[in-house]
């Protein structure tokens, strides 16, 4: 299945801003994070089609999946 993955802030560095990915059926949001070599502790918000989701949410064909890091400085 095809899913568009969108990365935000410093997750973009050395990766991409948005990319269409071919993923096996049943892939979870967390598996995509792991495959991108993103530390789960650095993840703030996950959204599929503008709705908040968790690492366990299973992606579907045509989803737009956004990954936001925690930004903590002041």
């Amino acid at each position, binding site marked *: 299945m095809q899913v568009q993955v969108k990365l935000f802030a410093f997750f973009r560095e050395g990766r991409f801003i948005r990319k269409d990915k071919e993923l096996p059926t049943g892939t979870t949001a967390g598996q995509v994070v792991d495959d991108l070599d993103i530390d789960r502790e650095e993840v703030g918000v996950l959204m599929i089609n503008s709705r908040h989701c968790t690492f366990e949410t299973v992606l579907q064909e045509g989803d737009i999946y956004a990954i936001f890091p925690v*930004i*903590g400085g*002041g």
Partner: protein
Amino acid sequence: MDKQNKKRILQRINLCSPDNYLVLDDGQRIAADCNCSLLDIEQIALEHSIVPARFKRNSLSFHEQLRLFRSRVAIIGCGGLGGRTAELLARLGVGHLILTDPDNFSESNLNRQIFCTLQTLGVNKVEVLAHEIEKINPALTCTQNINLFNKNSITGSDIVIDGLDSKEARIELSQLCQKRNIPMIHGAVKEWYGQAGIDQAPNKLISTLYPKTTGSKAPPKVLAMNVALIASLQTAEAIKILLGHNSTLQNNWLQTDLLHCEYNTIPLP
């Protein structure tokens, strides 16, 4: 101040404000002659639709300028975001700032924190800030708390500005604000990237952006223009709430990326 005295002051103000703006020199002279503070004089002026001339180019109505004059904003953390926000709020004419921070300026703050200079290294941030913003707005009341924040740091405030730099502190401040029903204007920065939003009981902004699973990391690298951008956004949201304007950030947060020139408004759950 008795009624007679107030009437006398108002007559003096009216005499030197034919265009409904009171210049600083006149305000200070009237204050000295009448044995009261500039704050007293400007309060009487604003209550009678005369605006201190230094706010002329704000282009706000005297009602709006008076509302800002009567507002109290608590700034928690007076480093990058908090310091810059304090400067902007002082220029806009907010009447009372409550500043809280236990830290002193250090060399690593020079790259981004306003009023951190070679002369202020080693001096407490709240003390420096209070001194500097008084030079911008001499009628400003400033409460200084040189300590970690607690419930007293936000007591009586209309708005709280989040100038903190740790997840745990933000969660604690959010809980304190929600308990007292005070909107907390959140801002955070890292490198070229930032975010801003309004944390209020119904929208759960802070618990959304800082889930339990995340760890606390070393102080992030931050670029000065990013701090200025996010502090400006926080100031704009604070002023909008004080003046009764609606904001899209009541239900969303703003994600900024100066490197790729992207500004995204993201819906809260």
